[in-house]
Every structure is written in C-alpha cells, then in structure tokens.
C-alpha cells in the first residue's frame, strides 16, 4: 500500500528486471478480470501466491509437515515464471542458499516447521547482520524435537523472537486466514526489501491447511517494494553506510559494486572491525532501523473494544475462536472485546499499554504453555489483570473455552 508507485518505479529505473522474471506475463494470464480472480485454496497455497505476486525469484527448502506444500507448489510454479527452485540437503543449507540468492539480487524465501526452523537460526542471524532481505515461513508444530508433526501449535513465538544467539531485532508476522497468508506474505517481502532484513512469517497448521475462498487481486493492485539499489558510482558507494533511514542501498553481486559481506560485526565499508565506537554504531543502526519503523511494522486489529471491560488478545488461528467467543459473549451482554496481533515482533507495546489502561482484564489464549502472555504482562504493568488460557494437547482452542474464561473473568 505505502509508497507503491515510487518504490516500484525506483526498482525499475535501476534495472531490477532480473529480479522478477516474466512475472508480469504469467500473472496477467492467470487473472480472470480486473477485479481479480476468485480461488478456493489453502493457506500454504495462498502463501505461494503471495510470494509470487511479491516477485519471488528463488526458493530453497527441505520437506517438512505442515509446510511441505509450499515447496511442492513452488517447484512447478517458480520455474514457470523463470525463477529458481532447489531442494537442499537440509534447512541449514536452505537458509544459506536463499541468502546467497538474495545477495545475487533475487527475492528469496524458504518454508519450514519447528525442527527445520531451529536448524535455520544461525543463518537467519547471518541474514540479519549481513542485511540480506529474505522471507522465512515457519508453519508451527508442537515440539520440542519431532513433537507433534501434524497438530496445531503456537509453540515457536519465542523461538521466532529469540532463536538466534546475540542481540538483535526481528520482524515476525502472523496470519489468521487464507487471505491473510497471501497479504502478509507480500507484506513480509516488502518489509524485508525495505528494511534489508529477514522477515519471519509465523503460520500455524490450521491456517496452513485450511481452505478458504479468496480473491487474488489483479497485479496492478499489488503493492510491491523492491530494495533500493545504489545510485552513486561504485567508487562512492559505502555498502553499509549509516544512512538517515538506517537502511543502506544494496547492490547485488555482479552489479559492478564489488564489496565484502560478512557475519562479523563490520564497519561501514563492510570490513570486520574491533573498534568499540564502530561496533556500537553498527549494532545500534540494526536495532534502530526496526525500532524507528514500528508504526509501519505493527499491525493490530481491534473489534468491540471501545466499551470493553475484558479483552481477548490473540493471534493466528486462535484468534478465530476468540472472535467467535467474543461475539457469543456480546450476545449474552458481556462487555468483551477483541485485540488481534498480525505483527508479533516487534511487539505492539503501545497497543497493549493503552489497552491495559481501560480494560479490567486481558485474556491471552495461546496454543502453548504461555509465551506471548509474558510480554502482555510485562507491558500491562499491573494496570489490569492478564489471564493466560493455554492449550497444548495438540488441539485448537475452542470458542467455548474462551467464552468460559470471559464469563469467569467478568
């Protein structure tokens, strides 16, 4: 949505045509009308559609339930638009390969579930420090270890936030419907390109496998952001310059800007540094570029919240049960409201602070033993009570359970 026209034009002028091979022709053929194309697809398929619409050029992955369909569908769809698909020997290699492809100028993605997500973490950290845009889809399943392969879970909320070693920020988006798997995949790519960082799309098994009707919009309505490329001659280009936005322009290998990329903390030229001033400046820039973008990155939806006394704060498929529960409670005269997080990280601190000022209680239903609820408590700061509602037996939280808690809390 934001900056659609200018960013796109910018990309084209600077010759990113290689970035989205033949995407246009293919999409045009697929669209049935100007109003878009109505389809009945799964969340995983919608994620694929979103990725292709965003200009995906490269996918590397390793099969794992419940994310496998994303690989399977892309193995035929991606070459058909001139892109590249590769099945790697494991998730470590998959993550490495998509960063390599990103550095070579393509928009890239991988998709996995818990065990594979754990294996990717070191290289996701590399993507963060090297500032290589890419998208990592994690369709969560219960764990630890092989855990519960096909049951729904929301157990990776904290792994997504803190899975890497060291200090860093990360962007994590969480859809609750098939349509949102599509729109948030596009958002994930746009954020990754704009802020030069890996973005994690945290799906759960329910949204990944459920089928829903949605409209694939015509290409002209899809907001696509491409990374900014350097516009200065190579001799002037400072690859990791501390620019006002905190996001330096990014040249692809082969563009004529020879430079060094490393996982070591580096100076503005990209070379390893041990100087304390440079280390601090670099680390702060990486943090600030995300912190300064909170307004754009944080997406929160509310319903029935103005007069609410009890709010149900949820995310992913759990929010569907929450919505049903709150609707039922409202019918019974309860002053219940809904807060749904589309962005889990950076955590919507202000939204929770404000909420805690005017409700008596926040109920946090999660398909885990309590992860995001800790963050809610931290920012509610005792201004209201925070009530966890957890289910971790491999089944979805049902609306009745949430309704029951609403009535209990009231």
């Amino acid at each position: 949505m934001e900056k659609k026209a200018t960013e796109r034009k910018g990309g084209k002028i600077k010759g990113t045509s290689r970035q989205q091979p033949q995407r246009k022709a293919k999409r045009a053929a697929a669209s049935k009308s100007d109003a878009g194309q109505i389809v009945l697809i799964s969340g995983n398929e919608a994620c694929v559609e979103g990725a292709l619409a965003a200009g995906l050029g490269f996918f590397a992955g390793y099969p794992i339930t419940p994310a496998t369909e994303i690989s399977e569908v892309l193995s035929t769809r991606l070459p058909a638009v001139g892109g590249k698909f590769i099945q790697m020997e494991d998730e470590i290699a998959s993550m490495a390969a998509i960063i390599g492809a990103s550095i070579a100028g393509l928009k890239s993605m991988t998709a996995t579930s818990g065990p594979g997500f754990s294996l990717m973490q070191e290289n996701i950290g590399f993507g963060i420090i090297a500032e290589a845009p890419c998208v990592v889809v994690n369709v969560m399943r219960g764990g630890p270890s092989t855990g519960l392969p096909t049951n729904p879970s929301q157990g990776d909320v904290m792994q997504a936030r803190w899975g890497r070693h060291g200090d860093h920020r990360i962007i994590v988006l969480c859809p609750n419907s098939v349509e949102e798997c599509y729109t948030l995949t596009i958002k994930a790519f746009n954020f990754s390109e704009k802020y030069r960082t890996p973005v994690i799309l945290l799906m759960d098994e329910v949204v990944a496998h459920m089928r829903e009707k949605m409209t694939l919009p015509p290409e002209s309505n899809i907001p696509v952001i491409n990374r900014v490329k350097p516009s200065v001659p190579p001799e002037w280009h400072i690859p990791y310059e501390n620019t006002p936005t905190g996001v330096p322009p990014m040249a692809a290998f082969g563009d004529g800007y020879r430079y060094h990329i490393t996982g070591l903390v580096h100076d503005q030229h990209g070379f390893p540094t041990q100087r304390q001033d440079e280390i601090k400046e670099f680390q702060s820039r990486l943090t600030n570029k995300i912190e300064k973008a909170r307004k754009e990155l944080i997406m929160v939806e509310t319903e029935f919240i103005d007069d609410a006394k009890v709010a149900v704060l949820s995310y992913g498929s759990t929010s569907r049960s929450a919505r049903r529960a709150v609707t039922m409670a409202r019918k019974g005269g309860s002053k219940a409201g809904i807060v749904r997080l589309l962005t889990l990280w950076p955590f919507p601190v202000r939204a929770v602070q404000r909420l805690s000022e005017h409700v008596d209680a926040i109920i946090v239903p999660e398909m885990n033993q309590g992860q995001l609820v800790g963050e809610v408590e931290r920012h509610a700061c005792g201004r209201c009570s925070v009530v966890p509602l957890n289910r971790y037996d491999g089944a979805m939280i049902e609306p009745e359970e949430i309704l029951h808690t609403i009535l209990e809390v009231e």
Partner: protein
Amino acid sequence: MERTKLVHKYLRSEKKFPHLWCPGCGDGILMGAMIRAIDRLGLDQDNVVVVSGIGCSGRLTVYVDFNTLHTTHGRALSFATGIKLANPKLTVIVVMGDGDATAIGGNHFIHTARRNIDLCAIVINNNVYGMTGGQYSPTTPMGAKSATSAFGNIERPFDICELARGSGASWVARGTVYHVPMLDNLIMSAITKKGFCMLEVAAYCHTTFGRRNKLGKPTDMMRWMRDNSVRTEAFQKLSDEERMGKMEIGVLADFDYPEYCEMYDEVIRKSGGGA
C-alpha cells in the same frame, strides 16, 4: 617484482591490512595463486564472487578485491549454491578449511558435489582446526597430537579428493602450497571446467599443528611436501608399499557430468517459463 605488483592489483591493500594470518602461513600462498589464476584467465573482477567459510582460511575473502562473502562455519558451499543458481553468469570460487568443508560442512560438501553445480571449490587442508587453536579435524593423521588429542589422534582421516570424487564432482585435484606454479594452473582449470570442481590444497599450520608434532618451521613443512608429493602419473606406477607416506598430486578425476544450472534451464523450459 612483477608478481608482487600483480597481487597488489587484486588486494584491498589500502582498506584491510595487515592480515590476520601468522607469519609464514600457507594461506597467503594460496591467495596469491588464486589471484594469478584469475588474472591469467582475464576474468572481470566484477563478475567474480569469492565465498568463504569460517576459519583462518575463511579470512581470505576480506583481503581480495572481488565480490566477497564470508559466511558461517561449514556453509560456504550452500551460500555459493544460492548465488550461482540465482545468477549463473557469475564465476563463483569457494574457499574453505578442512574442518569447514569436511566436518561441520561435510553434508553440504557431498551434496554440492553430487548436484554438480558449477563452482570452483578450494579446500585448504592444514590437517587441523587452525583458527580455534589446533584441535584435531577430520583430516588430522592418525597418531598426530592436537589440542584435543594429547595421546595421539585415534580417528581415521578423510581423503578429501576421494570424498569429492565419490560424491560426484566433475573434476578433482590436489595441489600443495610448495608446488606453486602447478597450483596456479590447477586453479585455472578448476575455474574454467564446468561443474563442481574440487581442489584440495595441502597446506600447513606450523603454529598450532607443526609445533605440537615437532614438524619444524614453515620451510621444514614445505620441504616435507617437496619430498613426499608424487605427481599422479608417477604415483599410479607405484606399488602399494611405495605409496605409503606419499601424497598424490595433480588432477585426480576429470569427468563430463551434466551441470546443475544448465539442467535447471531445461526445467524452466519444460515448465513453460523459458524466455
């Protein structure tokens, strides 16, 4: 003098020196050979990508003026696979250590060879984890002392060339940092030849390995290489007994297997995505 000038053309001399290697380390000899090979092939610096892993060997990418990527420990080949497949026009050279390539990165090593993607992979084999202070690696000889094998190494070492050949590499060779003109030529072949080309470079780490095993100064370790390396043509004529303690050098395998990126172009064509 000529040689020195040439090397300086490709070094990031004003930006990132002095280097981190110990005086006398073999890694610099390999770096010189790589630069000469690239120069002689007349490659455009802008189209050359050098990827490295983590280790003393991995630091090489900081010093050379190409598109350089210093990755994570063991994963250099996977990053390189992404780069090459994304843009097959780039010449991609990957420099790894023995631990990097065959311990933590062993899985990527065999699978990258099996795929036969067009990469020039150079493994600097100093038979030890140099950077972390000399622990035994998958290529440390049996009996050798290291920071983690005070009583002598009891693990049998890998033959990196056999590993590459068995995994499906198109081209496999072994050179040494003593036989420098030969090393230049081997790197040129590894870059030119299509498919996965693996060059093992026998090197040494006098600091962490030589000292512990009383192998002497760098010059002594090079002398060992001179006296115990046998070119493959001659090596093939030796009896098993005569081969004991000798190191075969030269091109050890040369096949014409289909290359991955070219085969992928065919996938694109079949899927209807060709231009």
